[in-house]
């Protein structure tokens, strides 16, 4: 479509017409007007609202059009169907009323044309905006498409040599195309546990066996002692939590397409790692993996992901190790955002209050799903450090809002982040977070704190 040239054409033709019309107005005498006498050379600028009103009062009274009426010529020129009410103004008055003086008719025509031109301009502007949006979307799709091609044809076949290259890392930061996302995650998470598809089948079979032998939760036959109740109810809890996992997506709920898959993976995991079992928050991680990987591969990624030191510390609720992570986080928090850090301290807002949910669910519960996946992308690239860096990015993004809040509002804000978080902006803020503190990297800070902790430093005690 050649929209710009069309605009030019219309503008030019209207401009020409206006000049000519002005000249003709000057030549005419003042005359009769419906709304009283009007001085002969009233300027062409008039309140558009008033004009509209005038036109509206006249609408419905239009007589038959004559072949040389201005309306027709306008139509020819603009190739534009005006709104019904405005169309009528250019008609001659009914026979029982005095005829429109030529000057007035001329003026009306002129005003009408201005309105039409404005409407047309607006329409064109809208059309251009829509076109731009469409182009942007196409561009985005193209870039995703070409990125997917790059990932598929260049990077994935040469994974071990390319995955640490500068170019791949940059591409990675921009977000992995959904079509290769699962593949990249799998490769990046790895399979240190050497889990095979067969092992998954075995674990799943065992879980199914257990479900059969465990009585229904609502029955009166619950006589287990308190010690085993948590573990046993783990299977029960999975059932209850599955329906509470991304409820708005309606795909994991009873009868939904992924209900059984999610149930299987979580159940198989409790058989694979009975020492860890099912912990709330896991269902979200498994769900995100299911959305990007086949069942057995999702299980392999799930088990390996949870086996990472940070995830193990959290899911086994190793409280002192969790506190060490929080302390390390606070080191970087103070370094990056000293003012906000002081504000949090003053309000006794400790990192556990917001970090627990973020870390346990890897942001899948707190961020919009597509944004959470982008965080996962880089988390797979950079490891646990990136989870804490993302937290600092979020705090940095909302720093100004947070500094004006008291404890409860901050706690509420952070545990229920806004529905719309600008992705690019968030990633800019994450990028601006420095993950070095006095020349020490995340891992070094964490290690030093862990040693302190082993020595029983009182710093980490509440």
């Amino acid at each position: 479509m050649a929209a710009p040239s069309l605009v030019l054409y219309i503008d030019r033709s209207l401009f020409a017409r206006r000049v000519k019309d002005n000249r003709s107005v000057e030549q005419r005498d003042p005359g009769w007007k419906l709304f009283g006498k009007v001085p002969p050379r009233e300027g062409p600028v008039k309140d558009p609202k008033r004009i509209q009103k005038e036109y509206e009062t006249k609408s419905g009274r239009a007589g038959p059009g004559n072949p040389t009426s201005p309306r027709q010529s306008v139509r020819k020129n603009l190739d534009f169907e005006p709104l019904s009410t405005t169309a009528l103004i250019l008609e001659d008055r009914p026979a029982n009323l005095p005829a429109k003086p030529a000057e007035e008719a001329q003026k009306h025509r002129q005003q009408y044309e201005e309105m039409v031109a404005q409407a047309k301009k607006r329409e064109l502007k809208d059309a251009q905006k829509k076109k731009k949006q469409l182009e942007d979307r196409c561009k985005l799709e193209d870039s995703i498409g070409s990125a997917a091609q790059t990932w598929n044809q260049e990077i994935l076949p040469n994974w071990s040599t390319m995955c640490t290259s500068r170019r791949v890392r940059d591409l990675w930061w921009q977000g992995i195309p959904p079509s290769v996302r699962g593949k990249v995650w799998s490769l990046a998470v790895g399979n240190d546990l050497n889990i095979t598809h067969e092992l998954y089948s075995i674990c799943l079979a065992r879980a199914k066996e257990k479900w059969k032998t465990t009585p229904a939760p609502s029955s009166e036959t619950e006589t287990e002692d308190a010690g085993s109740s948590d573990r046993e109810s783990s299977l029960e809890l999975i059932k209850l939590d599955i329906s509470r996992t991304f409820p708005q997506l309606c795909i994991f709920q009873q009868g939904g397409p992924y209900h059984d898959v999610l149930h299987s993976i979580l159940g198989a995991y409790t058989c694979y790692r009975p020492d860890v079992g099912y912990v709330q928050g896991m269902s979200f991680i498994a769900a995100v993996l299911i959305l990007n990987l086949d069942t057995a591969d999702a299980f392999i990624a799930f088990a390996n992901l949870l086996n990472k030191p940070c995830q193990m510390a959290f899911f086994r609720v190793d409280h002192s190790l969790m506190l060490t992570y929080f302390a390390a986080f606070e080191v970087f928090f103070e370094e990056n955002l000293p003012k906000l850090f002081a504000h949090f301290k003053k309000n006794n807002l400790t990192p556990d209050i917001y970090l627990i949910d973020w870390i346990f669910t890897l942001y899948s519960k707190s961020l919009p799903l597509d944004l959470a996946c982008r965080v996962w992308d880089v988390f797979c690239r950079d490891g646990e450090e990136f989870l804490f860096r993302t937290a600092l990015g979020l705090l940095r993004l909302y720093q100004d809002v947070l500094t004006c809040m008291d404890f409860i509002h901050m706690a509420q804000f952070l545990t229920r982040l806004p529905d719309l978080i600008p992705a690019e902006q968030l990633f800019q803020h994450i990028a601006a977070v420095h993950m070095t503190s006095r020349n020490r990297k995340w891992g070094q800070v964490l290690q030093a704190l862990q040693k302190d902790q082993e020595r029983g430093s009182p710093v980490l005690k509440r």
Partner: protein
Amino acid sequence: METIWLYQFRLIVIGDSTVGKSCLIRRFTEGRFAQVSDPTVGVDFFSRLVEIEPGKRIKLQIWDTAGQERFRSITRAYYRNSVGGLLLFDITNRRSFQNVHNWLEEAQSHVQPHSIVFLLVGHKCDLEAQRQVTQQEAEKLAGAYGMRYVETSARDAINVEKAFVDLTRDIFELVRSGDIKIQDGWEGVKSGFVPNTVHSSEEVTKGGRQCFC
């Protein structure tokens, strides 16, 4: 501008997983029943003003905790700074009732040297047909621990207001009689008349600038 309130009480809501803690709080603070809600991981926060006597408003800060046993080592850290607690069980789930004394023991051992005023709540009382715990035995248990007992339903909005307001009144009486005192470094009860004094950042810059110019 914040509405003026006399005191702020911090309440903690505990009980087994899926007994309906979040739904009860949401009914109380948002006035609606959430058909779908995700499991609480860690802790969630709510707040609401309650008028216990004409002109006497209390701000409630409500901590909604994760119910799963695994999270107890995290949530137990939150008892110390709470003045009141709602201990929920699900009247259609006998085990959640049997666990009530575990929850109380857990709380008692982690709240020292303070104490928490607890209210026992039998939740989901709209599901009468599936009831597994009678009102009498729940009342008996509550009595044995010196607690009030109330049966609530978030779905049908039964006794939700009453549960929170009664607990607030009880705490208010204890504060008024001096049995509960406001203390520095304790978040359980805060007075609403703390004036908004000098910002600490101002003080810092004032003090810090001098030696460098």
